[in-house]
């Protein structure tokens, strides 16, 4: 992975979301290796729209947060593990 993101540690909720991603998407990396500020889509982890759908389903099921395409924040929600975890935390139903 890209060196410039290496030193940012994962926050606890980010660790949880990272584990969920690895499990749901059958990723070959260790959850602890996903750098919180590295890109998720296209470069970085290299996820694509098929993954986005799988992830959206699991996020809905697990956290009660429904993702929508028209949500302008979307481009930023999926920008990194940090932004994704942040969005879920902000929107989740307790």
């Amino acid at each position: 992975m890209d060196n410039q993101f290496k030193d940012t540690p994962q926050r606890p909720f980010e660790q949880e979301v990272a584990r969920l991603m690895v499990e749901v998407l059958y990723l070959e990396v260790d959850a602890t290796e996903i750098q919180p500020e590295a890109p998720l889509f296209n470069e970085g982890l290299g996820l694509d729209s098929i993954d986005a759908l799988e992830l959206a389903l699991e996020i809905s099921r697990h956290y009660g947060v429904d993702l929508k395409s028209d949500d302008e924040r979307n481009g930023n929600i999926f920008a990194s593990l940090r932004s994704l975890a942040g969005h879920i935390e902000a929107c989740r139903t307790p």
Partner: protein
Amino acid sequence: MRDPGAVLFRSAERVVTARTFLHAAHRLAADLPAAASIVNLCRDRCHFALAFAASVLRGQTNLLASDRSARRLRALADEFDDLVSISDDPAAPSPLPHHLMSPAWDAPAGDAANPDIEGGRIVAIVFTSGSTGTAVAHPKRWGALAARSLAAGAHFGWAAAHPASLVGTVPPQHMYGFETTVLLPLHAAVSSWCGTAFYPADIRRALGSVPAPRLLVTTPLQIRAMLQTDLVLPPLASIVSATAPLDAEMAAAAERRWDTEVLEIFGATEMGSIAGRRTIAGEAWITYPGVKVSRVDDHTLVAAPFLAPTRLNDVIDVLSGERFRLLGRRTDLIKLGGRRASLSGLNHILTGIDGVADGVFVAPDDHVERPTARMMAFVVAPTCSPDAILAALRERIDPAFLPRRIIAVTALPRDEVGKLPYQALAALRARLVDP
């Protein structure tokens, strides 16, 4: 052609009638740059359709590019002289001479001239990936496209008395989405939703925004996703599925869940859609009016209006004049996430990368049942890291086929004639992948 007052496209902001669409198409046609061909990069479905219509009025050919990378666009410019790109998004970059369109929806009084487009005219070109890794162009004639839309309308019974509202989750630049969500409204009694509809939440909102009867045009991947949520949908006349076989049990579950009928379309990029069926009614496909299929050894020949007899890489069993069932697929072709590729084509690209002495893509055994399955690859590349190989592949192939795992080996178990026997490859996998 449809009545001037018929609704062709719907969005949250507007309803576009045939009259409005035609006026806007003529206006845009006058604005378009002179060019032989255009690459349509519009994001909004209605804009995409408008750009297509305008370029047809200008006598231009539309290239449908599912890969919009700069690399692909430059490759298209090399192959097609006098090419411009068109988009509705000011932020979208293009390495080609580019036109940013702004549609004019205010229709003056009166009806615009209904164009008389010659059936034999090539209006679009769609691409498939060939067995040597290079893209193969398939010209589409206006007559063929129109005939297919009219046939679909007749086959599925979408009559002018009860025009249907179509919501499609599929992008307009792939043949399936192009045929259904862009072309169908031009010929059949159907209006198409212009907003995005990708996540289950989007689909529910889109269907709720359009009048009955409602059609959802989608794929097995999306249907599976929807079934996994507790999604409630407004009354739905039909769900239409294509791009990959739909499991009959999943179709039955969808019919029960949303009190609807689940239909499938069978087709290929080379010829458009040619047959349909209701999934739970059985294996047999029923050909559209005007389509003839015949089996020839290990493949199929398809004839249809404005389509010269074309080879289909599936083996069929002809049941009667209009009915057939699928027996098998040529094993070189693989489909992931609704995209199609040639395995030998992928391998060709892999071994063409600098530093890769040998390599092979392997599809997971369960890729048909598990639509989110990914490829993996074995490579012989002592001086090239898996990351570097992945980066090179990223520029060259559809993202759906990027290997989730690249394993470096010292040699591939080829036999004396250079072939990679299935058993040898399976043994390698057993040793290295699932020990």
